[in-house]
Structure formats: structure tokens, C-alpha cells
């Protein structure tokens, strides 16, 4: 994985010093909260319901064990012994004190981490495929591209006060594991007819109150032009994106209002001008970055078979493993979704145990997924049983990847000052209702996503089943959506009808899954059956009078 050189380290260290200065000015009263707010937001520090929340960037979801141990240590020393992995592959601490924030950033800087641009109206942490560099189906490792973009976007002088936040995802496989087309810019690395790698550019996706799927704006941008092209994409947005209404300020609204063709024309015109400025680094810089992502020293003759004689282990293998590009190796997902648990939470002890496993069995590498799980990307098949036993001993061997228990949920009203409804207790209720592993497996792939408000941090629009918490005359009310997807079959869910209370929505989910079981055809996932049957039969069972 990428390692900082003297320049990267100097930039992050300078940021820590700057923020320490700003916090001192705030604590002394020299800065008002109003004046301080934009400064702390640029460092990922939010003022939430009960305390400060600090969001730490995990660029493209890649971590090493030393970094995860520091995250655990910070959780123990400065928080309440746990952290929360987010749908942007980041980590949030929910109980931070302002006076500690500079020290925490200094601890992070020692292991080449930061909280730069994890909030604010700027280009946010670049997200990617959690299986990057390991997946059997990838064209190439997307992370060198993502790292190039991380550096380009860090403290970008022109794009630090955009109309609204700006999220970029980079993938390089036909299977989309990063919800790429639900980002402001989604990039798919492809190979053209000449065998050259380049970026296919999608613009204008997003969730929030007006969900939209990104449009293809360019089918191929070579690495030599990528930064200039993105400068053009961002400049058109910065100049013409709406600033009169916060709810219409994302780039998706600009594309919707002027149309993708007009946007593309403006970008191409801007690109011709920007390309003359020499903003694109030489190929040698890309190669320098890419060298950090070379394959780890795989054992060439690693055995490709697995002893499946332990039935509980076999179930975990069937559910939580993905195909690795290297024979004899596998990608193992560690579910942070135990029945009744808080999706994405990990204790300091769990983080340390997982760090140990990564160091011993996965070439010191870990990934965070947008579905709020962790991944050991490079495990020898021969080591899987030992890994599973260690996870099982720590309560981390839940075999529910992509099943109904693998719920994405935002922090909701328990933590977030924007939320209208609680997300976590509902996730716990649903995972308890469907706790039976056999029942979960029978329902098959079923992505359930919960947001506690219209901002959609819990990706409810992209859930096969989505839930949106709203406030209805002072009581929490939950709307149900069906048919969304954040994957390569991207689609937006539709609201079934009137909302429910907390127990009512759990009952409604049970009814739609019962209908699926009754009506599914062989091989159909829940979302396939929904797409074939349409909304009506589902509505009938949800709202049937007893």
C-alpha cells in the first residue's frame, strides 16, 4: 500500500500544527464558534448531539495493521472504547473533546493518517472497491488512480468552497462494489481497444433528498489527461452549480437542470483550455504511486483447496469469501453486523485482534467496505480455518455478508444532529427478527439499508430494501422502499406507501420477504423478483387489511 514520502508527511504534519493553532484560538475565545466552524469541518470535526464527532479518513478504504492499532488506541484513550466504520469507508469517533482533537490528529499523522476533507464543501475522501488489488475480476488495481486523486484534491485551492460536498469513487471491475454511480463523480478504470487503461467518467450521481444515477460524460480519459479533465468537471460545477438552495447545490442538480449534453460540452471546452496549463503529472508519478500497490509476495504454490469439515466454518466460507486473483488465496470479509449489534461498530479490542490477523495472515493489509464491514484481502486458503477460529472466538465470525442481517445504517438520532429518527435500534430489531442464520441464507442476497433522515447517509435509496426515518408530527415514522441497488445493476428504490412505526416496519419487511419466498423463481434474488413482479403485489401484502 501507499507510503508517505517527506512531502506527504510534511503536508499532514503542517495541517496538524495549523489545526492546533486554530483550536487554541477557539478555546481562548479569539475565534467564535461561527468563525471556527468552517475550520473544524475541514478537519472532519462535527458538533453532534452529545459531543464532538471526529471523522478519520481511510483513503480508498485501505489500512495496515499499525494504523488500525492506532485507531483502536485512540478509541480507548479519547473515546469510549469503540469506533464506527462509515459508508464512506471512514471511521468516526462519537465522543471526542475539542481539546483532544489536535493530539488525536498528531497520533494519526504518525501512522500516515489524517482527517483532511472528511467534511466541508470540498472533495471528500476518495472511495474505492474494497477488493482492489485482490479481486479476480478486476481490470487493474484502482488504488493508484485513487491515490493520485487524493493528492490532487488535497487542499485544492480552487475547489475548497464548492457549492456542496463532492464525493468521488474509483473502481476497476465490472462488478461495482463501491456504489460508483451514486457518486458526484464515479470513475471506472477500463481498457480501450488499444489495450490502454483509462478512466470512464460518470458525473451527477448521488443520494440525499433527490437521488440520481450518474451519467456517462466521457467513455475514456487517459492517465495523462485525468487531472485536467477532472479540473474541468469541477470548475464547471464550481462556477455554475446552484448556491441559492443547499438542497439543490449538488452537481446532480446542475446536470439535471442543464442536461448532460450541455454539461459535457462545457467540460470539453474547459478541458481544452485547462490542458494547456501543465497540471497533469508525468507518467513517472503514476508509476511511482503504482509501485506501492504491487502484489504482495504471494506463495506461488499455495494449495487451492480448503478443508470444509467443520460445518460452521463451511457456512462462513460460503458466505463471506470472495474470489482472489491469485490461486491459493481468498478475500475474507469480517462482518461487523452481529444480530442485535450496531452496524459498523468495532471495539478497540476487536480492532486489535483484526490488526493482528491482518499482520499474520493478510500481508499486513485491511480494507473497510462501504457496507461497514472489514476485509482481510489476501488470506492463504490454508490459513482460513485459523483466521475463522480467531474471529469466532471474538464474536466476529458472523456469516452474513450481503444477507438481510448485513444492514447498512447511519448513526441516526442517537448521535446525529441532522437525524429525524433513530436508525440503530431499528437495525438491531431487524437483525434480531431475522437472527436465524438458516432463514437469512434462505432469503439470499438482500441488501437492507437504513437512513435516519433524508440526507441518506445510510444509502436507503440503494437498498434492495430501504428504510427512511422521518419525523411525522413529533413521532418517528419509517418509510419503506423497495428495488434499489448500488451495484452494477444500479437502481433507485421506490417508496411503498404510507410509513410505519418501528415495529410496523419490521413486520412489513417480514411480509415482503414472505412474498418473495412464495413467488421467487429459481436463482432469483429478492430484488430480481421485485423487478419481475413490480411494486403492486408487495404493496398488497404490506397494506392488506387483516
Amino acid at each position, binding site marked *: 500500500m501507499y507510503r508517505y514520502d517527506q512531502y506527504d508527511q510534511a503536508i499532514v504534519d503542517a495541517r496538524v500544527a495549523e489545526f492546533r493553532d486554530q483550536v487554541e*484560538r477557539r478555546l481562548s475565545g479569539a475565534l467564535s464558534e461561527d468563525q471556527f466552524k468552517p475550520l473544524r469541518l475541514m478537519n472532519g470535526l462535527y458538533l453532534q448531539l452529545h459531543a464532538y464527532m471526529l471523522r478519520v479518513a481511510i483513503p480508498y478504504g485501505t489500512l495496515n495493521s499499525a494504523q488500525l492499532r492506532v485507531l483502536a488506541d485512540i478509541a480507548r484513550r479519547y473515546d469510549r472504547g469503540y469506533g464506527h466504520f462509515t459508508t464512506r469507508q471512514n471511521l468516526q469517533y462519537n465522543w471526542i473533546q475539542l481539546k483532544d482533537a489536535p493530539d488525536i490528529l498528531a497520533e494519526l499523522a504518525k501512522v500516515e493518517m489524517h482527517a483532511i476533507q472528511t467534511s466541508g464543501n470540498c472533495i471528500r475522501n476518495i472511495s474505492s472497491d474494497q477488493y482492489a488489488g485482490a479481486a479476480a475480476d478486476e481490470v487493474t488495481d484502482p488504488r493508484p488512480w485513487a491515490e493520485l486523486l487524493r493528492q490532487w484534491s488535497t487542499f485544492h485551492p480552487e475547489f475548497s468552497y464548492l457549492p456542496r460536498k463532492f464525493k468521488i469513487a474509483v473502481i476497476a471491475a465490472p462488478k461495482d462494489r463501491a456504489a460508483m454511480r451514486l457518486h458526484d463523480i464515479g470513475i471506472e478504470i477500463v481498457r480501450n481497444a488499444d489495450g490502454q487503461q483509462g478512466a470512464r467518467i460518470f458525473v451527477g450521481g448521488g443520494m440525499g433528498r433527490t437521488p440520481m444515477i450518474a451519467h456517462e460524460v466521457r467513455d475514456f480519459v487517459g492517465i495523462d489527461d485525468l487531472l485536467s479533465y477532472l479540473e474541468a468537471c469541477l470548475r464547471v460545477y464550481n462556477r455554475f452549480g446552484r448556491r441559492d438552495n443547499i438542497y439543490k447545490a449538488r452537481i446532480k442538480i446542475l446536470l439535471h437542470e442543464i442536461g448532460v449534453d450541455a454539461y459535457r460540452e462545457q467540460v470539453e471546452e474547459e478541458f481544452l483550455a485547462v490542458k494547456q496549463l501543465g*497540471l497533469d503529472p508525468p507518467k513517472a508519478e503514476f508509476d511511482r504511486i503504482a509501485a506501492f500497490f504491487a502484489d504482495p509476495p504471494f506463495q506461488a504454490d499455495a494449495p487451492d483447496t480448503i478443508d470444509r469439515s467443520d460445518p460452521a466454518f463451511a457456512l462462513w466460507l460460503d458466505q463471506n469469501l470472495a474470489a482472489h486473483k491469485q490461486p491459493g488465496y481468498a478475500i475474507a470479509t469480517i462482518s461487523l453486523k452481529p444480530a442485535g449489534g450496531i452496524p459498523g461498530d468495532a471495539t478497540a479490542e476487536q480492532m486489535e485482534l483484526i490488526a493482528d490477523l491482518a499482520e499474520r495472515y493478510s500481508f499486513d493489509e485491511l480494507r473497510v467496505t462501504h457496507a461497514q464491514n472489514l476485509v482481510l484481502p489476501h488470506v492463504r486458503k490454508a490459513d482460513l480455518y485459523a483466521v475463522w477460529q480467531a474471529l469466532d472466538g471474538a464474536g466476529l465470525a458472523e456469516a452474513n455478508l450481503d444477507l438481510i442481517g448485513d444492514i447498512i445504517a447511519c448513526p441516526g438520532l442517537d448521535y446525529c444532529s441532522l437525524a429525524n429518527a433513530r436508525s440503530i435500534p431499528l437495525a438491531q430489531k431487524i437483525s434480531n427478527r431475522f437472527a436465524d442464520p438458516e432463514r437469512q441464507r434462505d432469503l439470499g442476497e438482500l441488501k437492507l439499508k437504513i437512513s435516519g433522515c433524508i440526507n441518506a447517509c445510510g444509502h436507503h435509496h440503494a437498498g434492495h430494501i430501504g428504510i427512511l426515518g422521518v419525523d411525522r408530527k413529533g413521532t418517528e415514522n419509517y418509510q419503506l422502499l423497495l428495488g434499489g441497488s448500488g451495484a452494477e445493476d444500479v437502481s433507485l428504490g421506490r417508496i411503498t406507501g404510507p410509513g410505519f412505526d418501528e415495529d410496523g416496519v419490521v413486520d412489513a419487511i417480514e411480509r415482503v420477504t414472505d412474498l418473495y419466498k412464495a413467488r421467487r423463481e429459481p436463482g432469483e434474488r429478492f430484488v430480481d423478483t421485485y423487478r419481475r413482479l413490480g411494486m403492486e403485489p408487495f404493496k398488497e401484502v404490506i397494506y392488506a387489511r387483516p
Partner: protein
Amino acid sequence: MTNSPLRFRDEPEHDEPAVTLDAFLGQSNATAVRIEAGEDARALLPHLDRLALVEVSFPSFRDGRGYSAASVLREAGYRGELRAEGDVLVDQIPLMRRCGFDSFAPAQPVDAAALARALEQQAHVYQGAADGRSPVWRLRHG
């Protein structure tokens, strides 16, 4: 505005008042113009050789359109004074300098010591911009 602007230029302050973009485009002899946040800086490109001062308005520190306006003007070769006026915060001035602003008229007074620290903070930058600083990729590869 009674205070004289913070300037990073050697030549004396331009003494002609800035006119609106409409007024500028409608008359041939003005040498100073003010553009509001929503106005298109590209309209000035045919006239850059007779401009001595462009003042870009920042109605709110959150409104970042002026950063692009400045970049567009500098990229097109404008060498005169480029002033940021309005809700300009001390911690934003380093970014504005990078986009080519060399003069500042903040609505609120700026703490000179905080500004000096802010301008010194980052020895390195990751990307090329109108200030011509070498991005770290150039330092890495010569």
C-alpha cells in the same frame, strides 16, 4: 471601504474606482472593474490588456465562485491587480493567493499574526495553480 487593501504587489495601488461589469463592457476607457459572484469572468478576456484592477466580490465566505474567476483570469494571462473583496477569512487567503489573488479587501479586519502563520503553514502543495508553485510531483521528478 476606508482601510487600504492588503496587497502583495509592488506597484502603487490603482486609484481608479472599479465599475460594474455591465458598465465596463459598455464603455471603452475604464481600467478597473468589479465582478459579482455570479458574473462570468470570461466576459473580461477580450479586454485584459487594458485592465489594471479586477475586484472579485465574495458575498459570503462559503461562496467559492471567485476562486474560479481568479483562476480563469490568470490562466488567460491577466497580470494586473486581482483583489478579493468581501467576506474573506484569514484562513482562506492562502488558497486565494494560490488562485492568483494578490490583493485583499476583507470586510472584517484580519489578524496580521494569524495571517502570517497561515501563509507560512504549507511548505508544499500537491497541485499546480495560478501562483506557479511547483507541485510535489514536480519536486519528486524534477
